């Protein structure tokens, strides 16, 4: 399938993101894929700032800012309201951070997914609470530095498997994507747009400030997350059918970790443990793709 990136823009250049931030790139691509008949729900996160303060907006489609933990149920409310007004065409999109999705918003998201409410939920995952200054979330990787997981007191638990959690609600579509692979991301959004029900996209968005990388390195680092199999690109249809959408090179994780200040403190042994974890989870994903339960 050949996918090109649509030319039309629904996002202006006057947004307020830090240089190298993955989020505005993600939103820009998403709007290209979904078109102007879209409304965006934004809970508290970096994106609340990025799109511009009152009375400005960097976005060409309607935005509703909502409370931190309410992205999903707000999207449900908008959908219900549009339906009552006979508008079946507008796509409702929730754009939340990892904190707003994995942590504080998981209850509302789980509720909406169980009801299979009709919207696209995009989790822009930069692996910590970045808007409040880099605190750990349950999406923060094993042993990563954040201001609440300082080097002497590391995060000793792995990242929560949000894709599996969402897929196990039996929703029609869940996909993992990365801003460094725009065509893959756009393809998934277009596919999602054609499906009814709760659609979940887990989008990896690099954060130079939080990951301790140079702003001109963010796409390179995000690519390495995929190539090292740390963040595989795949989709799950109907809660069952797993498909890897991009075959990674399998570069050693060290290449990814060593680029980032947040992993600078890792010992060789810890890097080896992370490699083992990544390999194990990759094997599990491959088995699931082959339809072999695990």
């Amino acid at each position, binding site marked *: 399938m050949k996918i090109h990136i649509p030319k039309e823009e629904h996002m202006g250049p006057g947004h307020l993101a830090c240089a190298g931030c993955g989020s505005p790139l993600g939103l820009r691509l998403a709007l290209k894929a979904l078109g102007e008949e879209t409304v965006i*729900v934004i809970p508290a996160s970096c994106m609340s700032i990025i799109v511009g*303060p009152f009375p400005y907006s960097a976005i*060409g489609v309607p935005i509703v800012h*909502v409370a931190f933990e309410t992205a999903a149920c707000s999207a*449900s*409310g908008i959908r219900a*309201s549009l339906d009552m007004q006979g508008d079946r065409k507008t796509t409702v999109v929730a754009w939340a951070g990892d904190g707003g999705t994995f942590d504080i918003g998981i209850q*509302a998201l789980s509720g909406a997914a169980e*009801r299979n409410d009709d919207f696209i939920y995009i989790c822009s995952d930069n692996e910590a609470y970045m808007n409040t200054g880099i605190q750990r979330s349950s999406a923060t990787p094993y042993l990563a530095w954040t201001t609440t997981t300082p080097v002497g007191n590391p995060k000793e638990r792995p990242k929560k498997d949000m894709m599996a959690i969402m897929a196990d609600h039996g929703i029609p579509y869940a996909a993992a994507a990365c801003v460094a692979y725009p065509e893959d991301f756009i393809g998934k959004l277009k596919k999602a747009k054609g499906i009814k029900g709760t659609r979940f996209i887990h989008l990896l968005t690099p954060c130079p400030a939080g990951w301790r990388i140079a702003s001109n390195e963010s796409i390179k680092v995000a690519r390495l997350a995929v190539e090292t199999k740390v963040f595989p690109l795949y989709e799950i249809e109907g809660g069952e059918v797993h498909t890897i959408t991009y075959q990674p090179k399998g570069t050693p994780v060290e290449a990814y970790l060593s680029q980032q200040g947040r992993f600078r403190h890792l010992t060789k042994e810890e890097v080896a443990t992370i490699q083992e974890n990544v390999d194990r989870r990759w094997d599990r994903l491959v088995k699931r793709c082959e339809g072999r339960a695990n």
Partner: protein
Amino acid sequence: MKRVLSGNKAVAYGVMLSRVQVISAYPITPQTTIVEELSRFCAEGEMEAKFIKVESEHSAMASIIASSVTGSRSFTATSSHGLALMHEMLHWAAGARLPIVLANVNRAMGPGWNIWTDQGDSLSQRDTGWIQLYCEDNQEVLDTIIQAFKIAETVYLPVMVVLDAFFLSHTSEVIEIPHREEVDHFLPPFEPQYRLNPKEPRSYYGMCSPDYYMEFRYKMQRAMEETVEVARVVDEEFGRQFGRTHSLLEPYRCEDAEVVMVTSGTVTSTSRVVIERLREDGVKVGLLKVKMFRPFPKEEIKGVLQGVEKVGVIDRNISFGHGGIFAQEIRSTFCNEDERPTVFGFIMGLGGRDVTPEAIEEAIHYTLDNHRPKEEILWIDLKR
């Protein structure tokens, strides 16, 4: 059409007749039968509405905030812990200037678990920017739901309609159900000034700096100030259409009264009976039922109570460290007046304890017999 309805069913009929388009709610005793009845109305096609069966009250309020900004008439109902869980979103609904209506069945807050009536839940939400209307009987409940939408859609502030647990929610009375066409005439479809709509892209509720925030709050206060008059006019209009009114304040036998008791909710009905009897004995006592708590109709209250020597306020609530909340409001209403009544603040009936005629009489006699209250908080029927 006359029917025997509980307070909760009266709420549901009010919502149905108001042609609410989106409902989102979560069960909690003693509100549950409201959502059950509404689910039935939606399922049986008596109502054309979307009912979002959310996983919490927080999501209930968040989702109708979203449905309201998208232009649909929206409703939820809750009680006690459910209302407390919504707290963040109550601020949001008011700040977003959305004409949402919420029915709150007054129930005590835990611990320990207590499902009985107490105003602590709704009065804790005093400063969220919601209009609050306290009802005395089931007819008033039904009529107030319909009026609430009209008020809300005029001033762009959300309205909380409050009814006592069990004494109203689960007690049946004969009430008049208005005709659909008449309600349609009284309450036309919701036509918001702005609605979320891809054809008119706007950003709602974005970051608001100190350069703007204060002016938005000023406008909310102005809207609250207008609400007293708007609600009066809406009630008058309602009276013309349906032949019944429910004023924001209802004085009863206040002429020449030395003591006026101030009440809200169902305590009013019991007090009215007590006062009628005392009047027969020549006791100069009157009653002021306060329906509107926010905005607090200060000028109208002054109109009734100025010149009265002593006022006894019955509070089925307490602000810990200060006292009864209605009593505080009455005191502050008069604090800059040269002529002001002495205010006796009674705490009664917390957690659903019966407020009996005897207890009310005790409060009245205390107020009559004492020049000033001996204590700032006067507890009635307290086991010490």
